[in-house]
């Protein structure tokens, strides 16, 4: 996979939109916005209503990409690892990790930190270090 350029404007704008989504959900429903929590709530619902609101939100997040492509006139770049094994192993580990760690970057990194939750600060520090270590080892030690 190749180099990508530093895009501060898009990063700030996109980040602000993610924050606005989290604030809107707190304002109307009183809930935190975490992607893994939304998926878990649809997979293992306590009640039908609990699954339904999360499914609506997830579906809208998926449809945002075609909407953006239509509005902007260009599809956003998505360059994923070629190896299916790497995607499968990565997906399994992320699935196990969010279940034990109680959240992902949107839940811990945005909503948890915004609530000043110590658990979230620890989770974010650990998963960022672990990801940096993983990329450093796979790219620079084994040269993949």
């Amino acid at each position: 996979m190749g180099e990508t350029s530093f895009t501060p404007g898009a990063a700030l704008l996109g980040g602000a939109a993610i924050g606005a989504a989290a604030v809107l959900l707190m304002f109307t429903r009183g809930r935190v916005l975490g992607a893994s929590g939304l998926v878990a709530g649809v997979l293992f619902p306590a009640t039908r209503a609990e699954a339904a609101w999360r499914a609506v939100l997830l579906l809208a997040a998926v449809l945002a990409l075609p909407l953006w492509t239509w509005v902007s006139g260009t599809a956003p770049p998505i360059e994923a690892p070629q190896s299916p094994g790497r995607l499968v192993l990565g997906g399994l580990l992320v699935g196990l990790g969010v279940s034990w760690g109680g959240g992902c970057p949107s839940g811990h990194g945005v909503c948890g930190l915004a609530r000043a939750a110590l658990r979230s600060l620890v989770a974010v520090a650990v998963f960022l270090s672990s990801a940096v270590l993983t990329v450093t080892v796979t790219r620079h030690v084994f040269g993949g």
Partner: protein
Amino acid sequence: MHRFDLLLAGLLFGLGLTVSGMVNPAKVLNFFDVFGHWDPSLALVMAAALLVTAVGYRIAWRRGRPVCAAAFDLPPRRAVDARLVSGAAVFGVGWGLAGFCPGGVLPALASGQSAPWVFFTALVTGMCIARAVDRLRSEDKRHG
């Protein structure tokens, strides 16, 4: 408000993930590649999302209750434990291998590429395995 707020929150979330580059594993992995082609964009995504959320949450909480629910429903504050730390560490390895996280993969599912679906299927499988293991353990505790 029915479900209009959920649609809007989901679209904002998905647009933010798309515009910021969280949907693009190449960009995410370069953020972790501190000792190589480092692309610091994602630090700004998190900073902007966190700032908007931290301020917005406080404004939302000042109302006393959410617009469409009886009360705020926040995750309970629990202690930092080994489960959280190991979960976050495993999450980071998966994130560093695949470059997708549970939020970023959502809009990518509509890209027409197969890689996001491979990752997402493995993610759901991982979450189901973690739940099955937890159930077995709690049954062992009851019987043993």
